[in-house]
């Protein structure tokens, strides 16, 4: 602890130095490269294809951002543990992942205005005895959620008597857990569930029509990059108006169209 305190003392100075530097956008222009941290949580937002090529809804939006900036893009691929440190330590300019901008998180990073709304849904194995969301409220039901995701919180509120199990490693593993019987139900973002269940034969899962919550998704950057934040909001505004956002979401999130290419 002592060492940490020493760190902080030394770093207060270092922090001042970075805060005083030029605008992030200028820096990006000069560098000619936009550094984006992504979390490869699975389709439809971010995935890696068979040959290692990176793709997905968020990934394409980030590429569009770089194109509009007129710079190249560099993806930094971290697992969940490394994602936030990458942004906070300045290794990445911004964070593109299917993240819910909660108020608590907003204390540490600067979120853009939400670019889409989704929500947590409940899914079960098609032939299981859990047919409705009500069924999953039974005492001792094993419910799979993603560690740290908003679905985890939603599940705790919606199923107070259930046995909540938090997994790491992305939505597909929740489907795997439910498919294998480690959990009775799963709770995750509806777009993710729909996108990821396509890896299974059609009709493997029952996805409940009702949503537990309505959640926004947003990109994130740091509070010491206000110019970048303003620009990102402007970008989202523009692509909403000219329909490019809708096209992206229709391809990736609202349909299985992406499946054809991957």
């Amino acid at each position, binding site marked *: 602890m002592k060492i940490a305190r020493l760190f902080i003392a030394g770093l207060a100075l270092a922090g001042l130095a970075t805060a005083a530097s030029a605008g992030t956008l200028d820096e990006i222009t000069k560098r000619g490269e936009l550094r984006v941290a992504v979390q*490869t949580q699975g389709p439809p937002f971010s995935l890696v294809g*068979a040959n290692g090529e990176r793709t997905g809804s968020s990934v394409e939006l980030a590429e569009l951002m770089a194109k509009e900036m007129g710079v190249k893009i560099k993806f930094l691929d*971290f697992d969940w543990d*490394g994602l936030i440190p990458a942004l906070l330590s300045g290794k990445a300019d911004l964070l593109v992942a299917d993240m819910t901008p909660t108020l608590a998180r907003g204390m540490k990073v600067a979120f853009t205005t939400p670019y889409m709304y989704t929500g947590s849904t409940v899914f079960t194995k098609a032939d299981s005895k859990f047919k409705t969301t009500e069924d999953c409220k039974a005492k001792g039901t094993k419910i799979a959620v993603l560690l740290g995701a908003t679905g985890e919180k939603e599940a705790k509120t919606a199923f107070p008597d259930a046995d909540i199990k938090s997994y790491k490693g992305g939505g597909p*593993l929740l489907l795997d857990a439910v498919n294998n019987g480690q959990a009775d139900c799963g709770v995750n973002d509806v777009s993710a569930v729909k996108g*990821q269940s396509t890896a299974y034969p059609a009709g493997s899962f029952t996805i409940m029509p009702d949503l537990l919550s309505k959640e926004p998704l947003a990109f994130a950057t740091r509070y010491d990059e206000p110019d970048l934040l303003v620009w990102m909001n402007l970008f989202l505004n523009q692509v909403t108006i000219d329909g490019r956002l809708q096209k992206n979401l229709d391809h990736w999130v609202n349909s299985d169209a992406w499946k054809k290419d991957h």
Partner: protein
Amino acid sequence: MIWQQFLSLAGSYPLALRGLGMTVVLSLISLVLGTLLGFGLGILRTGGNRLISSVIGAWVDLIRGTPFLVQIFLIFFILPEFGIELDAFTAGIIALTNLAACFICEIVAAGIRSVPTGQVEAALASGLSRWQRMRQVVLPQAMRIVLPPLVGQYVLLIKDSSVVSAIGLTDLTRVGWLVVQRVPNGLLVFFLVGVGYFIVCYPLIMLARRLERRMGAAHGEVQL
């Protein structure tokens, strides 16, 4: 279903090979560096200087006692705040080298301590210098004790290298995580990842076992 998934996985072999390559290159570099550094530290650890020895001891404890993930985070994310900016590969090499050096230091120190004092006295009596005593008399005999666990430690370190995925390097384990997004079958994917590690590690385990047998049978004990 499984066959279909397997075919889909087989299509990812270039990615898997890249991951395996990253694991091998990362391990190879840091094991070589870590071995050199570890031997140096082990020799200093058993050398006469109390202060140096206890500083090394404290450092080894700190590294052995904390999760490797935290060490790699400190090097990659926190050092930049002190003006030391490293790319992920270099940070991974540094972290893994340091980890290797600390474990190897303890193995080497134990080996050196196992050499009978009579040997050092004999070398001392014939006027060999400190370095000559170490080089000609102590280390060759310590190697008998050191080699088998050293190679065993290599295997552990190769497996520990998977933690580098936390700072964005695509090693074999990371490939597993990426692929499982597309082919959601944890059993199959990580079984294959296990096979990948097995291919790298098993020859080393065989080597360790052979060394152990050879060292045990070699011109070991002085006959009384």
